[in-house]
């Protein structure tokens, strides 16, 4: 009797272990065929990010790192930016503008060269008057962290302006970076986490993106005061350094025009009060099928087409001579 029970238990344990192993293998094979956005975000965080202790940055890219993320080659330069190595000294006639933003500006899922930063550089540069956009875009950064990038990482740069791209989650509180637990290396763990989150948002009581994003801008929301304060401080930095500051409102990419017009208007008012010249590019997407602008069916980051739309809208609204001052 005892022997049979023991055999039964051993059978169950062995079946379970084998099943989990085979599922892990199956998911890894699937990820090679169709990159899984949650697995790729985890890889981005573990391969390229680290804590920035004692800094308002919270976390930042590890310099000189490379990885293939979501099917795209990503290279981080010696300063921790996904950009070319930009010399400390400007070239003759060069205009240099700091580009602030989050994963959209970083160009998640978009090859270098197809991002709006490179498109604008090509559009705005002349042979005798090159324009350099220093793309500091960083996944999961908020407006406060972008301010820290401007104040800490670009404090000595010979800048001629600031071009900041706002996305609706930029009012989140600064998250605390933590090292990944051991089990997070398993694709099973990431997938189970992601599916659990999805099901809770679809069928449970966890907020979907509409309520979540809107809640970020409620008076009293955890990150909203910090967001407004960061805008004011960015304005102060811009004024103290004599830098024109352009603040670009990006659309939330799930749908166009989307339900956040009032949030865009409120943020535009906050940015204008802080001293920015506000450019709203949300209307550039009004006639587009949202799914044609996403990097994947389950990831609404803008793809190359989305980046081209953003670049064209900014180029139509901003005269680059705004940034030229005796360069």
């Amino acid at each position, binding site marked *: 009797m005892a022997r049979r029970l023991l*055999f039964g238990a051993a*059978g169950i344990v*062995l*079946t*379970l272990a*084998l*099943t989990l192993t*085979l*599922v892990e293998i*199956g*998911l890894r094979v*699937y990820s090679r065929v*169709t990159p*899984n*956005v*949650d697995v790729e*975000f*985890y890889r981005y*965080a*573990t391969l390229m*990010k680290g804590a920035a202790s004692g800094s308002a940055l919270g976390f930042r890219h590890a310099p000189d790192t490379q990885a293939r993320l979501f099917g795209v080659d990503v290279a981080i330069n010696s300063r921790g930016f996904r950009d070319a190595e930009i010399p400390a000294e400007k070239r003759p006639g060069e205009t240099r503008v700091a580009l602030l933003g989050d*994963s959209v500006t970083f160009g998640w899922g978009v090859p270098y060269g197809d991002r709006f930063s490179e498109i604008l550089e090509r559009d705005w540069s002349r042979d005798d008057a090159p324009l350099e956009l220093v793309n500091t875009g960083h996944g*999961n950064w908020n407006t406060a962290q972008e301010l820290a990038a401007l104040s800490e990482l670009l404090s000595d740069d010979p800048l001629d302006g600031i071009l900041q791209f706002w996305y609706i*989650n930029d009012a989140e509180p600064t*998250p*605390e*970076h*933590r*090292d*990944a637990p051991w089990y*997070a290396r398993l694709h099973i763990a*990431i*997938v189970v986490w*992601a*599916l659990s*989150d*999805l099901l809770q*948002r*679809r069928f449970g009581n966890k907020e*979907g*993106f509409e309520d*979540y*994003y809107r809640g970020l801008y409620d008076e009293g929301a955890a990150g909203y005061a910090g967001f407004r304060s960061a805008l004011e401080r960015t304005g102060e930095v811009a004024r103290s350094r004599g830098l024109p500051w352009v603040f670009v409102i990006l659309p939330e990419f*799930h749908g166009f025009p989307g339900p956040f017009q009032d949030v865009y208007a409120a943020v535009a008012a906050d940015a204008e009060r802080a001293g920015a010249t506000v450019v709203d590019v949300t209307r550039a997407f009004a006639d587009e099928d949202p799914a044609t602008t996403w990097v*994947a*069916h*389950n*990831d*609404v*980051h803008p793809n190359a087409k989305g980046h081209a739309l953003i670049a064209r809208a900014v180029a139509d609204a901003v005269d680059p001579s705004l940034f030229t001052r005796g360069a």
Partner: protein
Amino acid sequence: MAFLRRTLLIALALAVALVLLIVALDFFGAQPQPFQYILH
């Protein structure tokens, strides 16, 4: 031997079913989810 073979077959069947389920659910993903910081 029969015990091991049976265990392996059951595990394989379960694994295939689970992977197919996960792949199927993946195609219904993203819509309600905001961007999230996975290590926080």
